[in-house]
């Protein structure tokens, strides 16, 4: 059973309050938007990592993310002003879509599950282009929060994203998290103990889908305009890149990866073809140069600082072979 570390709680409360305070007083729209985009991407990446804990790659998160964004757009353009209610309904909608998709497809695994998710994201995107009610290829516009909330929206969005990432961490450290690790290691052994591996996978997938749905809803509020092109297979691909570049070992890794790559993508925005070259180049260099992700660099630096120039002591987890 996971015991709550007071230092951990205090640190997170301070960080959350600090972020809310900064976003509430910040005058720079660009900086606040960058923080909100980073937070949304962090939830996507943490959701991707959460499903990776059961040994599967969730390429369907692009479809769930887009579905929740469209639910939000439909709600807002039809006059629903209650932001918490809209975000909750969109998140639950994402969860229901995840439940249906997972119930059908989690019977297959590995590359098949990955590629069917990839196909699902593309088919849902194409479906939007055929539905006139959601604007077809043009998408939907005018997704604004009530004016009274306008100033507070960045802070609310980041706070929700922060709590979602913390929620992933808590779920991973719970007894259910242990079950997820067990399923990843060997689902047959889990079955012999009377636990349905499929049910564990499904619950994990639906938890991730609800969080990704909430992120999709925040995306709609944040961008104000959505179109089918926003929800292509690149969404899960980028989420996976954030998780890998940041490091999968800890939930903080995907958050670091998301912030790093979101900032990089903004820096190279508008440089035309070079934007792809630089973004792709960063992913390649990160994958070849730092296999454990950016979080391992941070850990390495921390170890070195503590040891104070003495020979670096590298701890190794005998079970996983990962650096500890």
């Amino acid at each position: 059973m996971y015991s709550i570390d007071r230092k951990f709680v205090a640190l997170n409360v301070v960080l959350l309050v600090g972020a809310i305070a900064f976003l509430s007083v910040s005058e720079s729209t660009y900086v606040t938007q960058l923080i909100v985009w980073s937070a949304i991407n962090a939830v996507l990446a943490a959701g991707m990592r959460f499903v990776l804990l059961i040994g599967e790659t969730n390429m369907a998160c692009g479809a769930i993310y887009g579905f929740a964004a469209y639910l939000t757009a439909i709600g807002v353009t039809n006059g629903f002003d209650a932001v918490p209610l809209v975000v909750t309904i969109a998140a639950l909608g994402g969860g229901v879509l995840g439940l249906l998709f997972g119930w059908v497809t989690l019977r297959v695994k590995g590359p098949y599950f990955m590629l069917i998710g990839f196909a699902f994201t593309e088919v849902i995107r194409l479906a939007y282009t055929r539905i006139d009610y959601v604007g077809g290829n043009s998408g939907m516009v005018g997704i604004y929060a009530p004016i009274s909330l306008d100033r507070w929206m960045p802070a609310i969005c980041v706070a929700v994203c922060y709590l979602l990432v913390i929620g992933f961490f808590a779920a991973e450290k719970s007894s259910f998290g242990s079950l997820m690790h067990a399923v990843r290691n060997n689902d047959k052994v889990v079955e012999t103990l009377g636990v349905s591996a499929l049910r564990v996978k499904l619950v994990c997938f639906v938890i991730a889908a609800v969080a990704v749905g909430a992120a999709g809803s925040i995306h709609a509020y944040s961008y104000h305009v959505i179109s089918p092109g926003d929800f292509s297979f690149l969404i899960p691909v980028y989420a996976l890149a954030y998780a890998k570049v940041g490091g999968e070992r800890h939930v903080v890794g995907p958050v670091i990866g998301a912030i790093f790559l979101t900032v990089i993508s903004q820096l190279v925005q508008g440089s035309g073809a070079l934007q792809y070259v630089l973004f792709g180049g960063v992913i390649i260099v990160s994958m070849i140069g730092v296999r454990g992700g950016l979080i391992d660099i941070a850990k390495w630096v921390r170890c070195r600082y503590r040891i104070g120039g003495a020979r670096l002591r590298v701890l190794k987890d005998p079970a996983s072979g990962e650096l500890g």
Partner: protein
Amino acid sequence: MALFVQLALNTLQAGSVYVLFALGLTLIFGVMGVVNFAHGQFFALGALLTSVLVPALHDSLGGSVAIAFVLSSVISIIVVLALAAAAYQFGFRRYLRDMVGSFILSVGMLLFFEGLFLWIFGGVPRVVPNIAPGELRILGAAIELQRLIVCAVAVAIGIMLYLMLGYTRFGRAVRATAEDAGAATLQGVRHKRTLLYGFMVGSFLAAVSGCLTAPLAVITPSVGNDYLIKGFVTIIIGGLGSIPGAIIGGFAIALLESVVGYYLDGTMATIGMFCVVAVLLLFRPRGMLGHVQH
């Protein structure tokens, strides 16, 4: 009758290129356990170089367009193979049998190469002159002569690959490595060399299908992405790592595209393609002929 023959000819022509492309993908997956998203970029580079070189060589050397096309294809394939060797040596070699890691690396390469091609070749769509003017009429249906030639070349390369994998020492090494890399090594198969050659053969198929597509389609730096999605659908239908599966899947996709595309439209054909995959996986979780498990 003419309509059915026309649809069958369209299926055969499109399917032969899809099959070549998918054979490369499935071979790389079977041997290395790598889901290679950069495969579409090798295809795109083959097509782009051909589309640039054919007019240039035709103008400078004279002679027929067909000769310029053959020369351009050879040069394009050599360049693609050099790029593929570099991608393997500096990247994929470190992520063998790591599906997620190699996938992310290949996505990085996809973005990098797409940007690079956009920068070098520009975004303007390119068209290759007709390599064999004229058309043939079969049972009332018409097919361009160049499409027939492309189809014949694709089928010939497919048969050569099948024979090579089935009856040569290299083919047996590749199949043994795909089945069980450890056991293959114990039997004297040179593991690393087989993986490299397997990757190169897969990339060669991407380059060839790109060159063959160049005279038939409008070529842009993002042309590889469409083929990549279809290629993945093809190998899911056929079964990952299965050579006969890729052939069946390629023609199944082309048939669906031709028929649904004719009666409805291209978007519905793509949606239908994904629906077929979803239903198929419910009943055959490893595709029609899939047997490789990683």
